[in-house]
């Protein structure tokens, strides 16, 4: 008998042809062994139609990955397609079922998987060449988790079972999602299919007490309740929604209970801890130098992963994907570092979720057994004036004394200039050991700050600093700038005040300087009738008119803010002065007539 079957198999193999096909990657978020792998096959696509199959496969993957709750966990899935050419295009249609479509051509097609509409139920589209299916999957993607087969016809139809089969009809995509709800999440149907289909499932129960029903945590949500499946035998069974779930109607989304079940199933299959560094299979030796431990995570969207780091059961960090430890962190010669990851998603209200699906990465830690050597470590060998650095010794069995007169394993020093420091290890019965280190102190930068004011409103303030390579200004009215020479246009009185600049040099050393800026309001009617001189307009643009009631010769002189004389004019009673071409800004003027003299400010725009 053995030979008989071996002979048959030999015959089969003799006749078999290559089953290897190119596997196209549609969506790959991670390695095959750490994700849920969905393989999409196609039937009834000829060689020339394979690009259309690839496009249809991509469209289904996009549809699936946009469907709630799969959209949140799209990084937990891989999607691949395997194009296999059929000899003929389309699908077989026996045309014998009472519900056969009148406009669909009847006939048999020679296709790769032999997909066919049903003989007695037309919309039931199934494959008939199971060996071809096994061969393609075994040769090309044996590690698949879910299989979807797209049938090249626009007429509606599909089926479930170990693989989800559906056509290219625009409404047929949800057949695939519904069937995956059965095969992947073990969801039951929420329509009444008959007493033989009544069993306990996440979305079906014989328990009707709202306080005990398995979806009691969702009862306050819209559409969720405890609904009878129907009358008679159906009255024994209950479901969480009425006409509001994909598991009952294909044009509805998953109900909250089915979303929760699907989410829990995804999180059961895929560990969000994708990688641990260093490898956890060997002990990690901690020395005096810090060692970094890291986890790579598969993040949902939005990211609801909570991370807790603990050492020997004691929490030490409540966030972050990495942590650094040295032997100083160990309270004994060995320890256990744990990174706990829990998905706090709102898609699930499973009461025991934290206990059941908190995933952990653990590293066994051991203290380095290397012989202790007297060492001196400096936290920062070069510092700026005013800063301090920590000098730390290790490996001294006895006592450590310092050239500063201090004792202990470590000291902080803050020299004002470059200096040497010595640590001495004194151990009874052994000669003293000394180590010296030099702390380099950089010169302090000398910061300066100035401005070109005083200013009137609407003028441009100019503040400048020197002494470093980087400048960080702060000032009134929330002023911030990192430009050495900064301008503030259209100044107002609010810009008045002290501006401080932090100047940092190339060594990273800093100094601060300040400059006070004055901005005065624009002079409205500075010249009452009885004043000695009238200067208008002020602010002036192009020309300024100077008039006086004093007889005799008058002299009008203008100075810029550096004290340079820019205008001097002698006149009788009244004159116009051309200020075209003069730099915008504040000027001082002096008016004199005989013994009388007065000065004031003139703003040129």
């Amino acid at each position, binding site marked *: *008998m*053995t030979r*008989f*079957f*071996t002979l*048959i*198999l*030999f015959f*089969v*193999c003799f006749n*078999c042809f290559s*089953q290897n096909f190119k596997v196209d990657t549609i969506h790959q978020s991670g390695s095959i*062994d750490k994700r849920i792998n969905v393989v999409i096959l196609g039937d009834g696509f000829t060689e020339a139609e394979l690009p259309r199959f690839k496009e249809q496969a991509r469209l289904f993957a996009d549809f699936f990955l946009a469907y709630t709750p799969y959209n949140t966990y799209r990084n937990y899935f891989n999607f691949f397609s395997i194009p296999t050419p059929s000899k003929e295009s389309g699908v077989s249609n026996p045309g014998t079922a009472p519900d056969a479509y009148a406009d669909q051509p009847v006939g048999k097609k020679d296709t790769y998987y032999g997909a066919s509409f049903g003989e*007695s*139920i037309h*919309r*039931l589209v*199934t494959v008939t060449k*199971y*060996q071809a*299916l*096994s*061969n393609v*999957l*075994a*040769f090309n*993607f*044996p*590690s698949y*988790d*879910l299989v979807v087969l797209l049938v090249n016809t626009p007429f*509606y*139809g599909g*089926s*479930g*079972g*170990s693989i989800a089969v559906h056509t290219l*009809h625009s*409404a047929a995509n*949800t*057949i695939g999602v*519904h*069937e995956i709800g*059965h*095969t*992947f999440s*073990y969801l039951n*149907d929420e*329509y009444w*299919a*008959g007493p*033989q*289909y009544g*069993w306990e499932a996440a979305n079906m129960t014989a328990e009707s007490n709202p306080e005990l029903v398995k979806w009691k945590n969702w009862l306050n949500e819209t559409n969720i309740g405890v609904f009878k499946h129907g009358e008679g035998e159906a009255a024994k069974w209950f479901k969480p929604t009425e006409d509001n779930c994909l598991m*009952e*109607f*294909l*044009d*509805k989304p998953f109900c909250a209970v089915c979303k929760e079940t699907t989410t829990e199933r995804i999180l059961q*299959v895929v560990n969000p801890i994708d990688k641990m560094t260093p490898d956890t299979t060997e002990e990690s030796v901690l020395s005096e130098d810090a060692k970094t431990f890291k986890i790579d995570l598969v993040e949902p969207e939005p990211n609801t992963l909570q991370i807790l780091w603990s050492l020997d059961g004691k929490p030490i960090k409540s966030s972050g994907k990495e942590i650094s430890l040295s032997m100083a962190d160990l309270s004994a010669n060995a320890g256990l570092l744990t990174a706990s990851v829990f998905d706090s998603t709102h898609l699930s209200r499973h009461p025991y979720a934290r206990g059941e699906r908190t995933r952990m990465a653990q590293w066994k830690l051991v203290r380095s057994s290397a012989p202790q050597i007297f060492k001196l470590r400096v936290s920062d060998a070069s510092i700026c004036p005013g800063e301090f650095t920590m000098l730390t010794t290790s490996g001294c069995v006895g006592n450590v004394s310092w050239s500063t007169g201090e004792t202990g394993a470590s000291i902080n020093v803050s020299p004002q200039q470059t200096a040497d420091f010595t640590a001495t290890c004194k151990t009874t019965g052994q000669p003293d050991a000394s180590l010296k280190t030099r702390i380099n102190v950089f010169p302090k930068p000398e910061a300066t700050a100035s401005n070109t004011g005083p200013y009137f409103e609407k003028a441009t303030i100019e503040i400048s600093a020197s002494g470093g390579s980087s400048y960080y200004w702060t000032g009134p009215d929330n002023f911030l700038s990192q430009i050495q020479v900064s301008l503030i246009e259209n100044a107002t009185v609010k810009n008045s005040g002290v501006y401080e600049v932090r100047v940092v040099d190339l060594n990273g050393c800093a100094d601060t300087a300040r400059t006070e800026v004055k901005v005065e309001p624009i002079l409205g009617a500075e010249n009452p009738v009885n004043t000695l001189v009238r200067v208008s307009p002020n602010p002036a643009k192009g020309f300024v008119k100077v008039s006086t009631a004093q007889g005799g010769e008058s002299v009008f002189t203008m100075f810029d803010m550096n004290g340079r004389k820019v205008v001097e004019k002698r006149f009788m009673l009244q004159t116009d002065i051309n200020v075209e071409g003069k730099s915008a800004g504040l000027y001082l003027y002096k008016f004199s007539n005989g013994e009388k003299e007065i000065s004031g400010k003139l703003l040129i725009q």
Partner: protein
Amino acid sequence: MVNATVFQQFVSGVIMRKISFLLFVMIGMQLMGCKTAESTIAIRDFKNHDPSAADHILFLDFEITRRGKKTEVVELVNAVSGRGKMKNLVAPVQSPYQIRVLPTYSSDRPETEMAFEHPLYRSVEVASQDGRLSKHDLSATQGTLSIRVQEDKALEKIELYSITPEKGKTKIYTLNLKQ
């Protein structure tokens, strides 16, 4: 001399005919279901078997045929191997008609039955364009059972059991595996 030779040929012919008849009866008995069918296959004889691969997944297709009212005849029609490991996300089967697959091992590895839909008694889900769904029971005289099993060096045999409300649980096939 001639007579002796003719006699020898006659005897040989009779023996050959008897052996052929015996083989025919044996095969016939197998096919008639008088005894649970059993066959043996070496892992190396699986199509696509790669001895250099660390892990193998075995794909097996069995054709199950109903003979009379009670007898189910099983034939192994395809055995193919693939590289890798499977997560085994097989959904539970609730139907009263099932095929149970029991891999057995020479080691102390736990032997866990896997349930599959019975290919002769299928429950199918039919979708309508208005989004409504319904279930239908279909029976057939012949169907294909496709299974996928993770290979194990200690995997000795795979037994198939048919479960129906009428007959209960009946062993219908044993596939012995040679490493």
